[in-house]
């Protein structure tokens, strides 16, 4: 029985390798030789202390150098294990790795956006959007103030750890406010959702400074929100 299985697999591989269809042959070759992309921690466009007093330099440093770095490290590790498992046709391990990939890959995606969502006041942090995104916010939520209130309320009510998002639904062409649990990226709430702005409401994002008072963190963070970045994504994705 074992010999027959081996034989069949070998035959199948050799058939695939020699397949005149280049796509099929390509798939067979790629599982063997493709180099694995290694993700790295992105740099911040500002100093750790540049968002003070809204977010302390200590929080920013730990958040970026330790937390985000750990997501990147564990994401790479999980992807390597996935690569091995797929190569060995080990479906059980392949499926088992999905949680670690979602958590650590999500952590990397979310934090990479978050850093761009923030900017020091002297570099335009907190300046309200006065372009097409500003118009869209007024249309969908009444005003920027109303949107901020909605995001703050949803962020404060989120139980445990997670994120609160302003997203663009590309299909319905409208803005949405959503929350995601843990490190789930916004796309887990719908394939047509694009994140414009994500606020981290994990305790590690604010605890050293705001302790148990998450609403104060949410109230203050708007002073360093980089609306310019959100507007750029909105322009690009809605055109």
């Amino acid at each position, binding site marked *: 029985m074992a010999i027959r299985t081996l034989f069949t697999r070998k035959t199948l591989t050799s058939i695939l390798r020699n397949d005149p269809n280049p796509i099929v042959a390509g798939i067979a070759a790629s599982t063997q030789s493709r180099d694995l992309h290694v993700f790295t921690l992105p740099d911040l466009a500002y100093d750790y202390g540049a968002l003070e007093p809204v977010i302390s330099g200590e929080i920013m440093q*730990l958040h970026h150098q*330790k*937390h985000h770095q*750990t997501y990147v490290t564990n994401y790479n590790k999980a992807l390597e294990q996935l690569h091995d498992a797929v190569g060995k046709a080990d479906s059980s391990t392949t499926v088992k790795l999905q*949680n670690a990939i979602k*958590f650590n890959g999500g952590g990397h995606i979310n934090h990479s956006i978050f850093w761009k969502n923030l900017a020091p006041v002297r570099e335009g942090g907190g300046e309200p959007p006065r372009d097409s995104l500003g118009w869209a916010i007024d249309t969908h939520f009444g005003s920027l103030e109303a949107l901020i209130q909605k995001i703050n309320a949803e962020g404060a009510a989120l*139980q*445990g*750890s*997670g994120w609160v998002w302003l997203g663009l639904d590309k299909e319905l062409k409208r803005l949405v406010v959503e929350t995601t*649990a*843990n*490190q789930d990226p916004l796309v887990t709430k719908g394939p047509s959702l694009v994140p414009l702005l994500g606020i981290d409401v*994990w*305790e*590690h994002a604010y*605890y*050293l400074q705001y*302790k*148990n008072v998450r609403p104060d963190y949410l109230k203050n963070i708007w002073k360093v929100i980089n609306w310019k970045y959100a507007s750029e994504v909105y322009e690009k994705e809605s055109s």
Partner: protein
Amino acid sequence: MKLLSLSTPDSTTCYLSSSAFLPSHSNGFQNLASTFKFSNNQARCIRKAGATKVTAKFELKPPPYPLNALEPIMSQETFEYHWGKHHRAYVDNLNKQIEGTDLDGKSLEETIVIAYNNGDILPAFNNAAQVWNHDFFWESMKPGGGGKPSGELLKLIERDFGSFEKFVDQFKLAASTQFGSGWAWLAYKENRLDVGNAVNPLATDEDKKLVILKSPNAVNPLVWSHHHPLLTIDVLEHAYYLDYQNRRPDYISVFMNKLVSWEAVSSRLEQAKAVIAEREREEERKRREEEEKSTTSEATPTPEIFADSDTD
């Protein structure tokens, strides 16, 4: 378990119970349906003159040691926030949430099970379960804790995990891989199914075993049938962030090495076994009663009895 009974003239009875290691009747909630008295260590009955409704208010119970007793492993500052702010907020918000609702007057354990609503969670669940979890967590630790358990608990740990060291490794792994906020647990699990007639015909004490579990956010083993929680560690970031920042594995290690009150865990195991034994006796008594009834009726057999026999 000390019971202090407060009786009011119209015979409404409230109990203030206190136990060294259980927030309340952690294992007794299965039996609560049979009684409409509520018993809870945190419940206080307030009867306003002329009012017909009893309002039970949960109270913030202090840890069984001073707030600085676990220094430097768990700082007083951590306790001032974790107990003084977070735990208090769960209590205050729960009281606000249940006031005037059907949950008003229920015990904490009943509230948790009802609000869990078989997984379709109702708003009061998070606060109710977090109140219970934190009480249970404070009582899972003691100054000068850690080390190794002894007696029956150690025997069961060795039987079910191979060795104490293997148990520690598994418990640490569960606590460090709870993605996001939540808790890791050691629980005593009965081998039972939630189907009335699904009875293990050869059940022995060997079928009951220790298990390690992890749960997200506020979820705890009370919502899973036949799990008796024995030990927990809080892995919400606020539990360790002021003392250990991002180093959750360090916090988990030091909790196991220096904080766990194995005395509390043993005592909970003993209580769980007593609750189970009492229920089993009760079930056995009912079974006998029914057997006696059916023996009596067998004297005049009816054809229906053989309706599903394999004679065809």
